[in-house]
């Protein structure tokens, strides 16, 4: 038997989580370095996965299959396609930066030593989430995927609820002590509970659909079911298929999140520390959009086509609504959260446009959104931790005192608004083109999302970075070495993928072709050619 590379990619962070958690509480720094090492080892393995993967080869590669729970018809089946490899790469890439950016986020409070902040737990939970997310990108057994999809909520929940910013929520730093501290904790646990309940309800509804799928299909193997569906061996009544599709899609739409199921995201991202917010939006939420591509379209192609108009409308609403609300935010992190909702609208629109450009663009967008949000949010986190406030109004003129910070913040902002030359532009363009060829009206309306994106990002930059220097930010230090190490590679990657996205598109295009043939959709012919 060959080396189980995919299992190893998930096992390394899982072992890392256990090892990190076992470090005695006095050796805090050692735990951090261990966590970083394990995340780098995972990145290395993800690189090996990428190297061993042949984009032109079989649809699922590096497959593993072992008996697990025979009574439920469940096997431990792994396999990756190009989309999976790309997302594993994104996850493995972002986690070291998240760990580095959160280096001091879980240190004990000096002033108030009786408060409980187990540093080891913070890093162990991050690695745990990484392990589950990676394995969920690899799972080709519906049950295995479901288990991971649900189980990853628990460490995520503790990350959101257990660790917040040092400063009180929306209060100025001056009165952060005392009463507002408790208020912040209450808001945080509210956000954590909201996150968990939304996702749990989505997941439980999916559970009903998973059971229904088993009753219809008799096993959980994605490949077997998809093959049986394609060859016509497995017929589903139209209504059954639609109900099952809705059960799955609901869970993914909560996770992604799609309007009107999005309301947990601003709370969760607002209250969590910046690295955890990145973990939510750039890593964990991708499981939702990934699962739409992998499970909804493959298992329920007819129902997917049936639901497309409604989903496109919801995606459009997400794009415009998210962007409009982002314009109105006073809190930096919530602004980024609403911007993310808008971007997830683009991703979902691209997936359900059912064109090759649309889906390639959506996959690429998942990667680029991960990198660009990470860059913007992590810099925003550094900014917030310096001032002790999340309110945009508390900043001003940072450019003059911390030019490097301001510069990186600007590049992150520009990536968020999809400036040509930066990575998100390519994907957004592809999504819009892909959507336009089939649904021109939808494509036109979605374009307004870009205009609004320019508004909220540039206004954010203008209010925080330019203008007269506020008294409180006058002594703000510029980025430290650790922070530069976090931001510089992300920005380099944004520029690189903006100019030369071919490595990623080459990886995902064959997989997108497979998915499209599942739903038996062909790209619409160009009109000029059709006219001939």
């Amino acid at each position, binding site marked *: 038997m060959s080396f189980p590379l995919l299992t190893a990619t998930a096992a390394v962070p899982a072992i890392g989580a256990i090892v990190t958690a076992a470090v005695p509480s006095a050796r805090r720094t050692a735990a951090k370095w261990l966590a970083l090492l394990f995340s780098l080892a995972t990145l290395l393995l993800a690189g090996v996965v990428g190297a061993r993967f042949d984009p032109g080869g079989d649809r699922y590669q590096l497959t593993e299959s072992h*008996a*697990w*729970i*025979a*009574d*439920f018809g469940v096997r431990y089946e792994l396999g990756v396609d190009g989309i999976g490899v790309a997302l594993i790469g994104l996850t493995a890439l972002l986690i070291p930066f998240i760990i580095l950016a959160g280096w001091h986020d879980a240190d004990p409070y000096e002033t108030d030593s009786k*408060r*409980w902040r*187990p540093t080891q737990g913070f890093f162990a939970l991050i690695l745990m989430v990484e392990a589950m997310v990676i394995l969920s990108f690899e799972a080709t057994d519906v049950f295995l995927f*479901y*288990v*991971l999809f*649900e*189980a990853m*909520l*628990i460490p995520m*929940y*503790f990350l959101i*609820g*257990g660790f917040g910013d040092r400063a009180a929520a929306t209060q100025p730093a001056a009165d952060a002590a005392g009463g507002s501290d*408790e208020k912040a*904790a209450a808001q*945080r*646990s509210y956000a*954590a*509970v909201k996150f*968990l*309940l939304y996702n*749990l*309800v989505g997941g*439980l*509804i999916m*559970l*009903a659909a998973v*059971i*229904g799928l*088993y*009753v219809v299909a008799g096993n959980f193997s994605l490949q077997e079911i998809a093959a049986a569906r394609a060859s016509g061996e497995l017929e589903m009544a139209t209504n059954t298929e639609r109900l099952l599709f809705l059960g799955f899609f609901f869970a993914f739409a909560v996770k992604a999140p799609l309007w009107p199921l999005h309301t947990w995201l601003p709370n969760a991202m607002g209250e969590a520390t910046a690295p955890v917010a990145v973990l939510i939006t750039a890593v964990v939420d991708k499981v939702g959009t990934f699962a739409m591509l992998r499970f909804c379209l493959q298992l329920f192609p007819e129902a997917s086509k049936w639901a497309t108009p409604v989903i496109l409308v919801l995606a459009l609403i997400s794009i415009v609504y998210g962007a409009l609300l982002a314009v109105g935010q006073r809190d930096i992190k919530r602004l980024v959260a609403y911007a993310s909702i808008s971007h997830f609208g683009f991703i979902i629109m691209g997936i359900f446009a059912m064109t090759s450009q649309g889906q390639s663009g959506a996959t690429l967008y998942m990667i680029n959104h991960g990198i660009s949000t990470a860059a913007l949010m992590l810099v925003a986190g550094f900014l917030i931790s310096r001032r002790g406030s999340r309110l945009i109004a508390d900043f001003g003129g940072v450019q003059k005192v911390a030019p490097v910070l301001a510069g990186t913040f600007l590049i992150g902002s520009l990536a968020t608004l999809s400036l040509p030359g930066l990575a998100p532009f390519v994907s957004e363009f592809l999504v819009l083109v892909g959507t336009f060829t089939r649904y021109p009206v939808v494509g036109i309306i979605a374009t307004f999302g870009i205009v609004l994106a320019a508004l909220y990002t540039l206004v954010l930059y203008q209010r925080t970075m330019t203008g007269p220097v506020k008294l409180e930010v006058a002594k703000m230090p510029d980025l430290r070495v650790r922070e530069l190490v976090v931001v510089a590679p992300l920005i380099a990657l944004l520029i690189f993928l903006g100019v030369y996205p071919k490595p990623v598109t080459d990886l995902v295009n064959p997989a997108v072709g497979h998915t499209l043939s599942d739903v038996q959709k062909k790209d619409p012919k160009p009109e000029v050619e059709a006219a001939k």
Partner: protein
Amino acid sequence: MSASAVHSLWTTAAPIQKIDAPTIEYAQLLPTLIVIGAAVVGIVVEAFVGRKVRYYAQMFVTVVALVAAFAAVIGLAAGGHASTEAQIAAMGAIAVDGPALFLQGTILLTGLVAVFTFAERRLDPEAHGNRVDSFTAQAGSVPGSDGEKAAVKAGFTTTEVFPLALFAIGGMLVFPAANDLLTLFIALEVFSLPLYLLCALARRKRLMSQEAAVKYFLLGAFSSAFLLFGIALLYGYAGTVSYAGIADVVDGTVQSIDPALADTMGNDALLLVGGAMILMGLLFKVGAVPFHMWTPDVYQGAPTPVTGFMAAATKVAAFGALLRLLYVVLPGLRWDWRPVMWGVAIVTMLIGAIVAITQTDIKRLLAYSSIAHSGFILAGVIAATPDGISSVLFYLGAYSFVTIGAFSVVTLVRDAGGEATHLSKWAGLGRRSPLVAAVFAVFLLAFAGIPLTSGFSGKFAVFKAAAEGGAGALVVIGVISSAIAAFFYIRVIVLMFFSEPKPEGPTVAVPSPLTTTAIGVGVAVTLVLGVAPQYFLDLAGQAGVFVR
């Protein structure tokens, strides 16, 4: 009516026959015999062994008996009695088959773990130099009286709890194996009466404990009366109390009519009313809505180790009896009982989950959670397929260890008044004792059915069986109530981990290895059944066939 007329009635209806001595298959009844025998030995120990060593003697007898009985169950199962050699023993009174042996094994193991928590003597502070357990010094003394103080000072302990627990376990072993209605009723009383007593024996909050016992006794007696009345009606319907005999009459395969019962035999009204009354009696024991009213009060008032024992083992035994009744006696009546059980399952799941949200006491919260779980198990019962049986068996096994573990953790969190069961006192527990809170969080997540815990495997098995059995709507309601239930489990986790500890909050007692074992077993079973349930699913699957 004159005396001679009555006499002639007797003689004509039942001509005197030679009574044969019954044949009893002692080997197949060994588990029950060992436990009941040990209970009798326990009473003798109580009478003749000195006070100082009585505790140890009782512990020894109880643990040895339970382990030996468990070994006997394993022996019977290994001898094929769970599958090919399944048979009916003791003149048709007891079935020795897969479900019976599986449930007996589960009851014995949960009983063993529960006895460990009964024996725990390190949680309460020492009284007058004596280590004390959760049970009152002298049950007969009036709470707060001088007599009670004297009993505490003299270091009395209620070591009767061990033989009482053994009697209860003995009855529970028979309950799911009972193969005629009278044995069913006797088993019910044998395990209920010791439980009523055990409920009244709390050391702290004795008035609440006694109130719980009275409520449990009155409502329990009421439900027993229903059961007995139902038995009488079914006898009138079928002319027999044996399960197979009644099933034959229900199926219409028996044509010979007992002349004394010519008026009633085959009368469907008797069958339906009688069947419904027996169901009521059993649904009372499993705590299904609308027969659940006793659960919160009794769970709250009883000594917590007893609550854990009751919540786990009673449920196992009662669901076993319910399964046998529905699958062996009344399968021919499936189209009548299924709609009723549908209704019961739905309201049980929903009411259990919804009412639990408003609870402020951890024991009451767990009580409502156990009601909701009864609803989930009922969903599997309704499936009416072999998969349904094995899924219920698996769920019961998984659930009982989580329950005992959870209640054991409750015994650890204490303040000056004994256990601190009010939820507000659990605030910040995760910061003060991370390990205890983490363990409790594992149990709560298992209750909530989060993947990778036994709760999820069990729930999945049950819902899968229900969906395959054509009860898809039940599954949808099941997941909705799971979502509601998740809310209050998570609320407790929030309270423990994300709230600031109160300055005058409770302390977490350091238990002896006894309670530690109980909790450790609970965690281990929860995780093993969550990650690798295949072996136990196989076991339950093989055990899923009733003998008739």
